[in-house]
């Protein structure tokens, strides 16, 4: 078993997902013994914790089936698709906002003063 697969296995475990959720809510609960100076492997692990947190939420809200967790390729594919979709939505929203004028004066045509 490769190290990255092992990291993923730990990050998606109930134990670490609970600990991760608790560490965000309760001050003093720590994932690592060190609270700064994080190593490369710890940073990668943190990324995996966020990734599985997001997938688990989508499974809980029944957006997707839990089959996604049966293969690392499915997990990565789903996250990539989700990210792309979110970027697209943000871009679309920006365009909508750009076409929406809060200041009516920008579109107002004032009658010319008669001489």
């Amino acid at each position: 078993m490769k190290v990255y697969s092992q990291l993923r296995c730990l990050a998606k475990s109930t134990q670490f997902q609970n600990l991760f959720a608790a560490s965000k809510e309760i001050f003093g609960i720590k994932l690592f013994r060190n609270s700064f100076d994080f190593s490369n492997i710890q940073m990668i692990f943190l990324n995996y914790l966020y990734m599985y947190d997001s997938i688990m939420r989508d499974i809980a809200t029944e957006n997707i089936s839990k089959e996604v967790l049966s293969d690392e390729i499915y997990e990565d594919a789903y996250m990539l698709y989700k990210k792309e979709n979110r970027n697209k939505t943000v871009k679309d929203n920006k365009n909508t906002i750009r076409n929406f004028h809060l200041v009516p004066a920008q579109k107002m045509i004032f009658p010319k003063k008669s001489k």
Partner: protein
Amino acid sequence: MENNDRLQEATKIIAEMNKDSDLNRVEEMIKENKITFSYEEKQYRVRVLNIREKEELDGLRRKKFGQLMQDKDILLEKDLIKVYKERGIDIDKIDAEIKKLETHNDSLYLKCGEAISKNESETILKSYRDQIYEIDMIKIPIFNAQKTLLLEFSLENQLLNYVAMIITYLSLDILEDGIWKRLFSTFEEFQNYNNEELINKAGSYSMLLQYKI
């Protein structure tokens, strides 16, 4: 028949236990930010470098860079690529092939992700997965291995290998009488050390821990 079943069951249990033990080791590694391992009945560990060691690393790296730049026999990656091109080996072509495969793979990942979010059938997902796996695990690594071999002696690669060596030298500790101490006190001592197996093991562990350098 019964014996066979029991043997299979035992193999399964051992595999499961090994998996658990590997996971415990990785869990320990993440929590402690150190990797402890045994080699020939002695305990060793690699750890993250402290500020003083990082400064030493930086100094040695700069010194080596200066030496490599002065050596006319060692070419920069871009110059080595030119030399290869003159001899009919096109590394840019390999890069283009890798890029093409990665773009194709990204689109497969997106399609697979869309299929997952639409709860499509396992057959469809499996077909995407197999295609992705082939590109990720077979096709791209072949091109990458070709490129790595060709550029092995470039200045950049020599510097990277040297940095990996220094990190191993600085981060490897040994447990003696219950106290952790550095295995090597000087770089010369490290260079003259003849146990390559231990160095390789420590090297691969220390690379896992370090920041991107």
